[in-house]
């Protein structure tokens, strides 16, 4: 009996050791990624990086020859990302919240499940397909790459995420909260806007931030629809660069390796910071109630 027991605990310990080993191995790429980004990316961080537009190939070539820091920055990328994400947010947030409300508050089971399935299929759509479809819908009819097309493709990426997080947030509400509102004499609209939505406001905001952090990193549809531009541009019918498009442009020029790393570090930190803020909002709300 004793022997049997020790055999079993030994197996248990060995497996536990293997699991710890696997977990540590799985964390290696993550740690490696962070260190690599910081070690190779810090060289180009300076004031110009945030205040100048991207360098021309000639400037990059000359500084590469002279082994100097590449002049210029990514201001056109930052401004373009901002513009495109504002467009996408303006489209996706109202539609997303209304869609989430519908998903939560629909009484026809067949139509509701159809809606669920279409959201699920949108959640999994590969970004590159969003890009080529928006190319067909917007870029071809308007005869040109534009920030608008980029914004719409990002909106398609963000929309299902916002719908789904809104729905998930509403699902945590007590089932009878609407009846309570009705008992107090509220109309449907006032129940939704004064009871249901305010209760889950922070969760929805955090979901929107996560969707934005996802949109910041999206690359392939933007290359197909917004193309990229060497200057700062606030017109929605002109091509723009975003941070991720700039990474791709820099990557295709072998003189700009340092620029690639720094821009990638910047993108990485942006995504991480947005996600941490989203988490903070989500859990901050939990502490209060």
């Amino acid at each position: 009996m004793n022997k049997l027991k020790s055999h079993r605990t030994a197996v248990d310990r060995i497996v536990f050791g293997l699991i710890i080993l696997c977990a540590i191995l799985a964390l290696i790429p993550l740690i490696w990624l962070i260190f690599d980004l910081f070690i190779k990316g810090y060289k180009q961080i300076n004031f110009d990086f945030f205040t100048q537009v991207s360098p021309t190939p000639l400037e990059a070539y000359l500084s590469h020859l002279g082994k100097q820091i590449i002049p210029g920055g990514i201001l056109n990328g930052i401004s373009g990302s901002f513009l495109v994400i504002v467009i996408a947010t303006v489209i996706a947030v109202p539609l997303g919240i209304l869609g989430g409300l519908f998903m939560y508050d629909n009484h026809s089971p067949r139509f509701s499940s159809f809606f669920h399935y279409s959201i699920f299929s949108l959640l999994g759509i590969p970004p590159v397909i969003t890009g080529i479809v928006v190319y067909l819908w917007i870029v071809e009819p308007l005869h040109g790459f534009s920030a608008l097309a980029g914004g719409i493709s990002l909106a398609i990426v963000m929309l299902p995420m916002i719908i789904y997080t809104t729905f998930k947030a509403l699902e945590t509400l007590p089932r009878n909260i609407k009846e309570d509102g009705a008992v107090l004499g509220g109309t449907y609209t006032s129940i939704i806007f004064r009871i249901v939505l305010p209760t889950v406001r922070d969760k929805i905001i955090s979901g929107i931030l996560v969707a934005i952090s996802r949109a910041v990193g999206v690359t392939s549809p933007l290359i197909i629809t917004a193309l990229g531009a060497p200057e700062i541009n606030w017109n929605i019918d002109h091509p723009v660069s975003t941070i991720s498009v700039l990474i791709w442009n820099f990557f295709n020029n072998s003189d700009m390796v340092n620029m690639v790393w720094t821009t990638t570090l910047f993108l990485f930190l942006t995504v991480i910071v947005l996600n941490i803020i989203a988490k903070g909002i989500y859990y901050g709300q939990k502490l209060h109630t």
Partner: protein
Amino acid sequence: MKDKAFKILLFISVISVLLLPLGILFSLIIKSIPAFQHFGIIVSGEWFSFIGYSLSVSVLALIIAAPFSISLLLIYAEYCNGKKIASILAFIMDLFAYIPSIVWGIWAYYNLNLIFDGLGIAHHSFGILPVSIVMASMMIPYSVSVSIHYIPFVPRSIKEGAYCLGATRLEIIGTISFPFMAKGLIATGLLSLAKILGETMVVVILFGKTVTSVVFDRFGTIDDLEFSTLFVLALFLFMVTAAVNIVARYMFSKFWYE
């Protein structure tokens, strides 16, 4: 009156959301008709190999990622359940789940170049195995984060009962936790598979032979027939990822409401 207006607004937005996937499907089908007329239903030769590469990279990446993801999940759910390290682990996985694929692509490209040069292997692009490993390391945080959020874990009382009967942790995992989580693990695997299939920038940078990267690389082509064939590939990809997503999310919701 306001109610009526709001309900109409709700209805309009829902219809427009519903039309989106249908519209995407419709556009892809319309654009791929010329290629179907020319080649028939079966996509031939070179194009077929892209689908094969896509599937093999994804499946290989999934196989590589599975043991690591499951280990991390077990540490979260079983070994360190409720301890501080579990919540730290969940936090890290959530953060890394949404790292853009271009960041992984850039990181992998320069480091794989260093490694290949260090080993003295001449290379033009990287093979299936290195790409799958990169994809797997990118997939691990995503799958762990998904499974932490969506899989319901074994109730504590059941586990305590098993401990009282003298079971070791491994026996509890093998006989209680795994059967309990099996459906959820399969659903997570399917979601991850769909995500890897749709991943673009990593394969564009490293490999260039999968469906997504071919669609991306050759999109600027002027040849009408080739352009149309790209839409056949896109249509295939869209249908596969949509189907896998629907099945996986359905599995999650099924036992979520049980």
